[in-house]
């Protein structure tokens, strides 16, 4: 059996109070390359906390998190930043695009930090935009795009560095049903390329498209398949 890409073991995350809040309580999760995992739960259940830990934006209070077999708890801040740049892609509900930069510049931005070969950056950004169907919008500013197009720019930005793990936090939360379906199809294509996708949603229709579903309630996880 190959080394899991993501391995959470009895992860607890507490926020000191008062009152102290335990957002995650003994979560364990294993994700392999090419897995498509949806994490479903109501607001405040701990979904985002879990995603932050998986994205190395936060640390567990108790338990261990291994990424590609490496314990992440002992990594210093700079190394965690480098791992994020090279191994992890993020897609956010609010897109988080730079409003005064063109679509192409937005997609090129992660490559500043990932160490992508300098001469290849623009070509790779163009390819990523072609892949999400926005090759004709590269010079546009994000504000001139529709919600679905903006989210596709965000997806292009997330995958342009060829990460092994893509984390999506409510990626369809601001989109209508048809646009959501387009974006989900795009995600599924990426998964077939071997990318591991973990998507947080409270949209059951989105969650059902995943190969593995994890429900979180009150900080505790339950796997459905």
């Amino acid at each position, binding site marked *: 059996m190959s*080394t899991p890409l993501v391995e959470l073991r009895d992860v607890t995350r507490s926020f000191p109070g008062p009152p102290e809040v335990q957002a995650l309580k003994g979560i364990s999760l294993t994700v392999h390359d090419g897995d498509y995992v949806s994490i479903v739960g109501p607001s405040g259940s701990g979904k985002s906390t879990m995603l932050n830990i998986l*994205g190395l934006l936060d640390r567990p209070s108790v338990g261990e998190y291994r990424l590609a077999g490496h*314990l992440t708890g002992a990594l210093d801040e700079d190394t965690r930043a480098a791992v*994020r740049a090279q191994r992890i892609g993020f897609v956010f509900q609010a897109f988080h695009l730079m409003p005064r930069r063109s679509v192409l510049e937005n997609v090129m931005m992660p490559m500043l930090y990932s160490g992508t070969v300098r001469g290849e950056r623009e070509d790779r950004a163009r390819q990523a935009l072609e892949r999400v169907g926005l090759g004709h919008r590269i010079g546009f500013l994000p504000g001139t795009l529709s919600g679905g197009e903006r989210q596709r720019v965000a997806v292009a930005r997330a995958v342009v560095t060829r990460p092994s793990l893509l984390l999506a936090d409510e990626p369809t939360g601001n989109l209508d049903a048809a646009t959501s379906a387009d974006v989900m199809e795009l995600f599924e294509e990426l998964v077939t390329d071997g990318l591991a996708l973990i998507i947080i949603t409270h949209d059951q229709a989105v969650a059902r498209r995943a190969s593995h579903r994890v429900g979180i309630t009150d900080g505790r996880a339950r796997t459905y398949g």
Partner: protein
Amino acid sequence: MTNHLASDVPPAGTGDAPDVAPDQLGSKSPDLLHTVPATDRFSFTDLLIEATSDLGTRPGRLLMTLAGTILGIGALVATIGFAQTTAGQLSKQFNAFAATQIVASPAQIRNAEGNSVSTGTLPWDAVQRMERLAGIEQAALINEVPLQDGTVAAVPVNDPSAPTSAPPRIFAASAGLIDALEGTVRYGRLFDEGHDQRQDRVAVLGERLAGNLGITRVDSQPSIFINGIPYAVVGVFGDMQQRSELLDSVVISTGAARNDFNLTTPGDVQARIVIGAGPQLAAQTALALAPDAPDSVTIAAPQGRSNLAESVQSDVNLIFVILSVVVLLAGGVGIANVTMLSVMERTGEIGLRRALGATRRQIATQFVTESVILGLLGGLLGATTGVFAVIAISLSQQWTPVTHPLVAIGGALLGAVVGLAAGSFPARKATRIEPVAALRGG
């Protein structure tokens, strides 16, 4: 233990090697980070591009941000420029006369009786020697002719009933003395080198003496009698601000004085010089006149600006510099405020960059660089404004604008320093923003 965290190179975006993480999976786990050549890491060029990309997107805010620095640096550069310009101007106005005269005399010592005696004499060709020096405009010999119990009269008759009075002083001079002293000819003319060489008995009179002697015109060829020797009065001079005693004196040529009164030494050299040449000529003249014994010559030369002028100027400068620094501080606070506002506005961007792999140091450097560029831009515009202000006001006052180039360059760099200082705190604040919180805020 094998390090599978990364190959033996620093991670992307950092200049440091990562710490080795405990790896309990052994050699089965793949490397977490791939090799990044130095050429592909976040470079200074990347930093400059990131720091300047958004600068011009809000021109109004940019201008407001720069206004304080432009005013501060502009005021500072203009103050220093005005100080330098008015320094030249004050020299002209405070010392217009004193600054243009130099006198070379034989050095004096006191003898056993307490009287001053000369230690030597100047050469007869002293004028020619001095006029070779740069900065000398006109030089002339001048020496008082001793006239013990002598008489000076406008008529040859000795009137025993006339009241006794001291005779006027007689000076022997080379041609060019009146010009050297910036005097003017009231009427008639001055004697020239030809009169001097021919030892002609010609005299020019100070205007007060001429009045006392009743000589009001020279076209009737009046004469005066010095110890009974007739001298033709060829002219009358006035406006003798440098040596007003000459207005009551007779000036005859050196040649005639040597012939008629046994003048044995040329006396002093009086010279008119260009403004500002005093200190330099003070050092050169003694050597030119007595190369073998420069100490035997005493030079009285202007040493630059008067203490009064210096004092007035320094007071004015101090006030302006204080005002400029206050304005500059206000400019710095302005940049700090706008940078802080920018940090707060761009919390989402900071969170995004951190999520995309930017380190805290890269975030801090970007904000500091933006601030330094703002300061530099403000400094450049301010220095330009200051220089133009000096030029404009100087032109309107018909002054000569004077500003050292380093003042303008220094002003621009000072703007960058203000930007650096103003951006440091907001940049530190930016590094403390946690990406989780920043991204949640949208």
